[in-house]
């Protein structure tokens, strides 16, 4: 690629093989992500999406192939300070208290920085502010809801102002209003030129932002190109929706309760 000589690709993986516990999870995956692109990684559970992302960031070892981030191979010389990673969920609590501010501050560290720089606290507070958690900075993350924990993890990735943001199912188990704030955040970063790689189960609220979709199946790339359009016929009022199974039983007789969800 001629472009590579001037602006290196944000992510460049060639012939990536990952074997975990004797099972081949990824087989010969090639992936090149242009700077500024918003890419969705799609695929069923177990298709290797999370493993691919972890291999790209050096979390799991690769048995073959190479990964370059912004032109530099994985390792000490990689530009780690330009990469922000949002895992699927916070690790299980060990009982040791940790505040949101402490968790976000740990995002300031990378290969060449083992102590937070001056102004780290201010930057961590600003990152928490950007995800709407400024008032919870000094709360234990263990006492937060799943959605708030997810926002803390996003703040931890944003605190170092990444040029490449990698999100692993950021909207799983998150309510609609919070999903919308994530989409706004990603849209803002995209407008500022950040490259975004996001694992999704369905495009959902991200649909308008995704420029390219890579679909994995059994550890191989099954589709690489424009995101699959939602099938419009499903939305038609006269769409005949059939289920393979019979209709569920009507709910049992009980008190008259109506729950309405307003926008």
């Amino acid at each position: 690629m001629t472009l590579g000589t001037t602006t290196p690709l944000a992510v460049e993986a060639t012939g990536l093989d990952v074997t975990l516990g004797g099972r081949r999870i990824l087989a010969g995956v090639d992936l090149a992500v242009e700077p500024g692109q918003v890419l969705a990684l799609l695929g069923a559970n177990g298709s290797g999406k999370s493993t691919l992302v972890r291999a790209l960031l050096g979390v799991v070892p690769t048995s073959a192939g190479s990964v370059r981030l912004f032109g530099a191979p994985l390792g000490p010389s990689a530009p780690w300070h330009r990469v922000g990673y949002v895992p699927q969920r916070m690790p299980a609590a060990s009982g040791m208290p940790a505040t949101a501010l402490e968790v976000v501050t740990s995002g300031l560290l990378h290969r060449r920085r083992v102590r937070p720089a001056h102004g780290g606290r201010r930057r961590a507070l600003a990152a928490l502010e950007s995800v709407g958690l400024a008032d919870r900075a000094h709360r234990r993350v263990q006492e937060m809801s799943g959605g708030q924990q997810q926002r803390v993890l996003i703040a931890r990735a944003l605190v170092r102002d990444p040029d490449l943001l990698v999100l692993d199912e950021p909207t799983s188990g998150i309510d609609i209003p919070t999903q919308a704030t994530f989409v706004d955040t990603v849209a803002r970063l995209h407008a500022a030129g950040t490259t975004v790689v996001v694992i999704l189960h369905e495009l959902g609220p991200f649909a308008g932002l995704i420029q390219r979709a890579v679909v994995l199946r059994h550890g191989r790339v099954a589709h690489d190109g424009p995101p699959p359009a939602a099938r419009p016929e499903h939305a038609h009022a006269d769409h005949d929706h059939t289920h393979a199974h019979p209709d569920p039983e009507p709910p049992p007789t009980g008190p008259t309760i109506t729950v309405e969800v307003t926008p």
Partner: protein
Amino acid sequence: MTWDLVVEMLTSPLMQRALLAAVLVGAAAPVVGTFLVQRRMALMGDGIGHVALTGVALGWLVGSWAGLVPQDALAVPGAVVAAVVGSVVIELVRERGRTSGDLALALMFYGGIAGGVLLIKVAGGTNANLISYLFGSISTVSTSDLWWTVALAALVLGVGLGLRTALFAVSHDEEFARASGMPVRLLSMLVATIAALTVTIAMRVVGLLLVSALMIVPVAIAQLYARSFGRTMTLASVIGVVVSVVGLGLTYWQDIPPGATIVVLAIVVYTVAATLRPALQRRRPDDDPHPDMVDDVLIVDDVCDDPVPTAPAPAGAAHAIAATPSRAGRTGGAPRPTPGTDDPAGGAPAT
């Protein structure tokens, strides 16, 4: 009367050395313990302590072969070497396969004790010689021992506090630390090494069998009340100093073993703190955990006043749940049309 006794205690050179060692160990051990608890390796200190016993005996053996005047001159260096090697092995086992880590730790426990007992006999000593290492002998702290303690405690505190954020990051979320390119293995080894050094300096104060208690129990007390990682560490360190000094002070008046007294005192404090916790915790009655949430769920326990009439439900089912995008929208509560029938009047477009 009591004051005179305190002055007398503080002017005794032996007690001065012992108190200084207790303060240093009491401050340093919980700092390391905080990282161990966070890594779910609270028992690691015990494993290292058992291995260090073999190191003590090995140092004794080498000392007797070399014909050193006090036979145990090399006991402490032997303990340092064995503890560091043991901690690195434990860390490697943890990193490689999580399933056998538990078993490997058990093997080290038994191997360490058995090796120590066996080697001390070979070296011409008796099990009685090991007792002072197993249960501590703070009254025998010499000036050179004290300098070792000062240097190692300074090293442990320097690493533990100086690299606090990095060690926290690695212990809190190892995957994220790897994805940030942090030297995860090096930092994990560093935690293991400072744990090993702490074991060897605390050996003289509380003994190898009780070392882990001084690392872990103050942390267990602190995390009952502290809200942040940093405060847990500070509070644990303060508790460690207080129980060490008070426990040691008690042994000045009563003929009781210092190591055991310190540990029992710490556990008593933990019991009291845990019992009083529900009463002492601040209540925040008006604290809504989700103040930013819009009240988007309306519960109407009366007949639905929706403009679109709900289709008559079979069997008198009146339990309808409508989740519509707009309040005046369609009712989703109507029973779904049977599959195969084209029923646009059924309302809810099922997709």
